[in-house]
Each structure stands twice: as structure tokens, then as C-alpha cells.
């Protein structure tokens, strides 16, 4: 989830419209956008640097395993509400294909991998994360950041996304690695709470998983170690929640979409470790300091938005700039909750490790909650984080996120009267990023918001 500033975004050939550098749209010309005139914004800070260090070390470890230099076992698992604490408790290293392939996309190297999979018969309409991962496997798991080890265990935590099931089933057939599905019943209750039977069922599967991990590693579970891992997760969850609350301030000290992804890398890949705890201690301190100084990520925070949907990894920087030029800062994002929702109070519980892991998997992440519960989550963001608007980034690959987002727009724009923008591209496949079109849509949206403010101010002035 690192941002790679070395690689310019306009470097891609042929698959998107040329950026309108020469003639900015009329909207942009008219808008009094300070940041658009200033030097390019540098988004990186201390947190980014530290993240890079940790992620490099993480990938160095994966490479060591892949090259046979480390005896450690690994499990491939998925981001949405995962039981990484169990994996860590066995001293296994978790491998997250989603993180692997999004980093490749961010380095603009995903297309050849996607095409490799398409040659095998994968459809253009299949989730490109899966295709890139299959392509990566077919390329000997050699990635720009290191080598991914072949799985000792394919641990499919089926949390919401049905594509997860296909994905690991395919890996099992292609690689021959042993695979298990952890079946997480989707939330069916109106209050979003799992039933006691839901929890008991998941705990039972986690117990079976412990047996499997014991056989995979040839060790037995150290219960104390599991408790410590869960405790570290709870600690990190606490700090992450604190960080999330900071964007309720004006200005928000960081961007809850674009900067969150930096922290999410550590939150997901290293949750349950001491390193992650140290990282978040630094992040909390750093961001609190920024908040105390009234510093935001941009020179001026003009619009506070909630962003829904995953980012377009191959064009992250370009995409971010499209908001920056309007002084738009994300104060909350749904994407930052795919792995877990901590901002509303959930914490892992070291006294009841398996039950709390089960709760996390069942109900405390975006993916296993209903589409309407996502509407509620977003409405809370709008109200409690005081957002001016919603931006829905609809990605073709991920139907878990996108299917039905037209209805979501309808709900927010019509029923809640929150200005809502719906734009489309993809999270991994660069062929679906139409830069000029996106920029025009975003410009038109913020211009309309600006206009609305001017009108409102005039009306208020008239009354006074």
C-alpha cells in the first residue's frame, strides 16, 4: 500500500485518455483553487517513511521464505476480517495476495500479469486482483518488491466476498497447495450483530483451523502466545480508532482515504506483532502533533468528503491530485474498514481470543455487513465526521463494493440530500482508467459544490 512517487502516473501507454494538462477544464480555470497553482504537493511524512521500512522488512522475510533461507511456514489469506492472530501465534508468516497485487498495480506493472491470466481463459470481467495474482504465480511469484513464497496453506477466510472462494480454489488447483475455507456467515440481522450460533460455528471452525495449523507447522498452539497476539491486535485497534477519530477535527490532520492506505498496509500485514504496535504508537503521536498544530495534508481544507470504494491503484497519485486541486480532503472512507471496523468500539479480547476473532470476522469489518449497513456507516461518517459530500469510486473488478452503488447514490443524493458523485474505474486494471473523463466529472462536481456555497453565503448575507 505504498505510494510510489518515483513512477510518474502519465507513464502508461495507450490505455487511457491523455491528461488535460494544456487546457484545464473551464471549471478548474474558474475555481479559486490555491493548491492548483502551488508546487506539487508532497504527501509523504514520517509515517510513510516508517511504513516503507516495515513493509520492506516484511517482504524481505517473504523473499527469504520463498528462497529457502528461512524455515518459517506461510499461509496465504485474505484481507477482509481475517484471523491473522492465529497465523501469527504459530509463528507463521501471513501472505496477503491482495496487498501483493495492489502494490504491483501501484508500480504500474499489473497489466502484463492480468493479460497472462486472461490467456488462460479468465474473462475480462473477472476481478483483476485474482487475475494479477494468478499472473504473478505464473511468473514464478517474482514481484518488483520481492518474491512471494508458494503457500504452505491456502487459508480462505470467506468473509463477504464470494470471489475469495473462487480465488483460493483456483490457487489450490494451480499450485496444488492444501486449502481450507473458513465459512463466515454473512450478517443477516438488522442490528448487524451475529447470533450466538454464528459465533459458535465460527469458533468451531477456528478450533479445526488450529488443528490444521498444528499439522502444518508440526507444533502445538501456545495459548499464551495467542493471547499476546490478540492483545497486540486490540492495542493496535485502539490506536487505529484514535487515529480515525482525529479526522473529525478541522482541518483533518491526514487524508482518511489516501493516507489511510499507508497505515492499512501495516494494520493488515503486521497486526498482532510488536512492530505494528510500535508503528501505530509513532503514527498516533505524529498525527496528534499535526492535529495540535492545526496542520492538514493540504494547505487549505475546502471540502470534507467521504470516499466509498477502493482506490485506483495504478493511478493513485493522479487520482489524489484530482481532489487536492479542489482542496478536498477525505475525512472518512469505507475502504479503510475492509479489514476491520475499529472506530465504533470493537476491540479484540485476549481473554476470549477465539470468540473475539470470530466477532471480528463476522461483524466487525465492512465486507461481511450488508450493503444497507454500509449506507448507515457512511451516513454516520457524514454526520459525525461532518462531511460536505460523498464520492463513490465504483470499481469494475470488485462487485462486492460496486454492485448497486447507483442505488447508494440515489439514497444519499435524494433521501439524505448529501451531494454525491459516482465515478467509475478499476482498482487493478489500468485499462479502465479514463483520466480526462474522471477529471471532468470531479471538476464539475466540486464546481457545483463551490457554487452552492456561494449561493448559500449570499442567501445568508441577504437575510442578515
Amino acid at each position, binding site marked *: 500500500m505504498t505510494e510510489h512517487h518515483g513512477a510518474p502516473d502519465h507513464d502508461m501507454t495507450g490505455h487511457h485518455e491523455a491528461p488535460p494538462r494544456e487546457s484545464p477544464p473551464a471549471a478548474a480555470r474558474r475555481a479559486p483553487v490555491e493548491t492548483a497553482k502551488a508546487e506539487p504537493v508532497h504527501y509523504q511524512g514520517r509515517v510513510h517513511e516508517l511504513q516503507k521500512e516495515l513493509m520492506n522488512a516484511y517482504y524481505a522475510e517473504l523473499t527469504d521464505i520463498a528462497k529457502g533461507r528461512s524455515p518459517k511456514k506461510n499461509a496465504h489469506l485474505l484481507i477482509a476480517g481475517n484471523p491473522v492472530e492465529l497465523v501469527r501465534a504459530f509463528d507463521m508468516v501471513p501472505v496477503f495476495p491482495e496487498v501483493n497485487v495492489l502494490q504491483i498495480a501501484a508500480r504500474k506493472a499489473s497489466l502484463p500479469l492480468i493479460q497472462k*491470466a486472461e490467456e*488462460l*481463459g*479468465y*474473462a475480462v*470481467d*473477472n*476481478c483483476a486482483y*485474482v487475475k494479477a495474482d494468478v499472473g504473478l504465480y505464473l511468473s514464478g511469484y517474482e514481484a518488483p518488491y520481492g518474491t512471494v513464497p508458494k503457500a504452505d496453506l491456502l487459508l480462505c477466510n*470467506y468473509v*463477504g*466476498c*464470494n*470471489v475469495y*472462494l*473462487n480465488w483460493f*480454489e*483456483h490457487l*489450490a*488447483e494451480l499450485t496444488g497447495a492444501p*486449502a*481450507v*475455507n*473458513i*465459512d463466515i*456467515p*454473512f450478517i*443477516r440481522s438488522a442490528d448487524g450483530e451475529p*447470533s450466538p*450460533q454464528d459465533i*459458535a*460455528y465460527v469458533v*468451531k*471452525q477456528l478450533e*479445526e483451523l488450529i488443528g490444521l495449523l498444528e499439522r502444518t507447522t508440526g507444533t502445538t498452539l501456545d495459548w499464551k502466545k495467542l493471547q499476546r497476539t490478540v492483545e497486540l491486535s486490540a492495542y493496535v485497534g485502539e490506536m487505529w480508532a484514535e487515529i480515525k477519530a482525529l479526522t473529525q477535527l478541522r482541518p483533518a490532520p491526514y487524508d482518511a482515504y489516501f493516507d489511510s492506505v499507508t497505515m492499512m498496509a501495516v494494520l493488515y500485514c503486521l497486526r498482532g506483532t510488536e512492530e505494528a504496535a510500535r508503528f501505530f504508537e509513532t503514527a498516533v503521536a505524529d498525527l496528534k502533533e499535526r492535529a495540535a498544530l492545526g496542520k492538514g495534508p493540504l494547505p487549505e481544507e475546502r471540502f470534507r468528503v467521504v470516499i466509498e470504494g477502493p482506490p485506483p491503484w495504478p493511478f493513485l497519485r493522479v487520482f489524489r491530485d484530482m481532489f487536492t486541486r479542489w482542496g478536498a480532503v477525505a475525512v472518512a472512507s469505507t475502504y479503510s474498514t475492509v479489514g476491520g471496523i475499529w472506530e465504533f468500539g470493537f476491540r479484540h479480547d485476549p481473554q476470549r481470543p477465539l470468540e473475539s476473532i470470530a466477532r471480528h470476522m463476522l461483524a466487525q469489518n465492512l465486507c461481511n455487513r*450488508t*450493503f*444497507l449497513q454500509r*449506507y448507515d456507516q457512511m451516513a454516520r461518517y457524514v454526520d459525525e465526521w461532518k462531511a460536505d459530500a460523498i464520492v463513490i469510486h*465504483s470499481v*469494475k473488478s470488485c*462487485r*462486492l463494493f*460496486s*454492485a*448497486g*452503488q*447507483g*442505488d447508494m447514490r*440515489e*439514497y444519499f443524493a435524494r433521501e439524505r440530500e448529501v451531494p454525491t458523485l459516482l465515478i*467509475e474505474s478499476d482498482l487493478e486494471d489500468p485499462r479502465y482508467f479514463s483520466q480526462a473523463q474522471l477529471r471532468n466529472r470531479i471538476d464539475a462536481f466540486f464546481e457545483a459544490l463551490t457554487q452552492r456555497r456561494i449561493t448559500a453565503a449570499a442567501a445568508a448575507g441577504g437575510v442578515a
Partner: protein
Amino acid sequence: MTLTTFAPLPVVEEYREIVEDRGYPTVREWKRRTGRAAVGSFPVYSPVEITHAAGMLPVGLFGAGNQIEMAHADSRFQSFICSIVKSTLELAFVDKLAPFDALLFHSICDPARNLASVMARNFPERRAIYVHLPQNMASSGAAEYYAYELRRVAAELGAVSGRVPSDEDVLESIVAFNAMRSRLRDLYALRAERPANLSTAELYTLARMATFTDPLESEPLLADSLRSATTRDARPKDRIRVVVVGSFCEQPPLELIAGIEESGCYILDDDFLLGWRLFRTDVPVDGDPYLALARAYLDGSLHASTKHDLRVPRAAGLVASARANRADAVIFLGAKFCEPGLFDYALYRRALEQEGIPHLFLEFEEKMWMYDRIRTEVETFVESMLFV
């Protein structure tokens, strides 16, 4: 459209138009006659016995086919979402789902799941019930948990009909559906054995009839048709033998199915309307009926692209079916934008190539009404098989 060259089956004649009628005339008639409620089941598999036991008519919802224009739903679901999701929502917007007092959705794929939410929000008066189907077939807790889920669904359905089914009610409904499914299995076996006796277009019409008819009423109709088809004096034509796979959820138009046959294929096996005949054998009727249904789903059901059983790869299942049916080839007939179907294609292709079984990839949309291109593709494929 000529379905056969000899005497048509009366039930097929009677239902040929009705199966595509989104006015659901027979459902309305059943409701008038019985004064009871009806529940629409979105594909693939639905625990219909429970709907039935709660005193209601379970009805398969297969989108709008090519029967209506999209006017509302395509602003809710994007262009890259399969047609059945959008057309089912469209049916609700134009009030064609009026005969249904509740809807059942199941954990088959991400668009179908979000559809359940969108439906619930826009049409709160019609209860949308979401059913979780287990995906860890190997867990020792799966059967018990899924039985619990079915009981939960029974309570929800009971709230719609005003009658939570007793265990006896469920057992009775299992008996009724066992009988109906057993006739369907017989019909499938007849077609596999003597494909000239029963065309797939006929078989499809019969099976589709069973998706909106009380099993107590459809079973005798299927039995009649089975008798008539068995006694037909049919001479086999010069066709290739194929297994069709990929249409387990969104359904191809009947004309397309007939077109594939007329282009020179005997279809020996397929996954059309798969959920309605998912169980390989009768569901046992001694003991806890919910547990029996759960076990049948986990251990006694056909392969389905929405059921991820790591114990037995689906591609191996397809190869086994092709072998058992002495098929010359496999036709993958997948719904456009159907993620689970399209994923499976990649694995099927790999397995079929390894086994040296030729295959043809075709993509359809329920809303299509021109079949020339697909027919030409099939004809070319058949020719290459017969003459090259």
C-alpha cells in the same frame, strides 16, 4: 420454433408460453385457488421445502428474460453487472413481482447479495430474506449450523404466511419435493440415455414448469411426460453429443437452447435450473428434517459454480459427467458478467484441455433475442467435430 419432429408432449405445449410469462399467470391462479401466499426464490439453490412447509408456493425467479425493457434498474446497478440482477429489480419497479409476498436471496455471489439489500430498501413491504449457504463443507460444524440457518429461515417465512412450519410439515414437503425431483432425475436420465426421445428444449420447459408449480401438482405432469417421451419411437440423428455447463443462474432464452440442439447437438447433461434439482438422491425423511436438508446440501448435491466444495473440484466433476455421458464435447454457455461462471470457465478449460475433450465457449444474455451468431458458432463447431 419446432421442438421435435414427432408428437409434442402435451405438458410442454401447455407451458411453452407460460414459462416466459412475467405476469406469472399460474402463480396468480394458484393464489386465488388456495388463498395462500407465494415466495419468489432468486437462483441458484433455495430451500423450497421450507417455503412450501410454511404453506406458501415457492417460485423460481429467473429475471425478466427478454420480456421487458430496462428503465429503472440500470441506474441502480452498473453496466458490468449481469442481466438477471438488474431485470429482477426491474420487475419489482414495474410491479411485476406483485404476486410475491416475500423474496429469498442466497449467498451465491456479490451482486445477488447486494441485490437483496437494494430490493429490501426500495420495496420494504415485501420481505427479503437472505439465506447463508455454507462453504466449508469439511467442517464438522457445517451441517448443524446450516440446519440452524434453515430453522431461522423457517421462522422468517412463518412470519410471512402466519404459520411457522412444524417438523412434520417440513417432512411432508420434503416428500413432495423428493417425488418431483425424482421425476426430473428420471427425465434427465432418459435424455442422457436416449436424447432423440426428449429434446432439451422440452426437458427445459418441463423443469421450468416445476419451478413455479406446487410439487404435488407438477410431479404427475412430469411423470406423464416421462411416460410419453419414453414410448416415443425416435430415430437418432447425426448430431454430436455434448454436455452444456455455465447457465446455472441466469437462464438462456429457450430459443437459444433449441437453437443449439438444432445446430447439431444432443445435450446429454446441463446445469440449467440447477438449484431445483440439486440433490442427487432423495432427502431422507427419518429424523430431523432440517438436518436432513443440510446434509443433502453438503454431501448429496450436484456440483454448482456457487458451491465451493474443496473436497471435489468442479472441473473434475465436469470431466466425469462428460465421460459418463460419452460426450464428444463440452459447451460452456455462460451468462455475460456472471463472475462465478466465468471463473469456473478458466478451470474447466484447463481440465478439458488436459483430458483432450474439445469445448466451445459461448456467452449469452437472458435478454438477447437474436441467435444467428451463436447458431453459426455452434454449427461451425459441430462441423469441425463431425467432418474434420
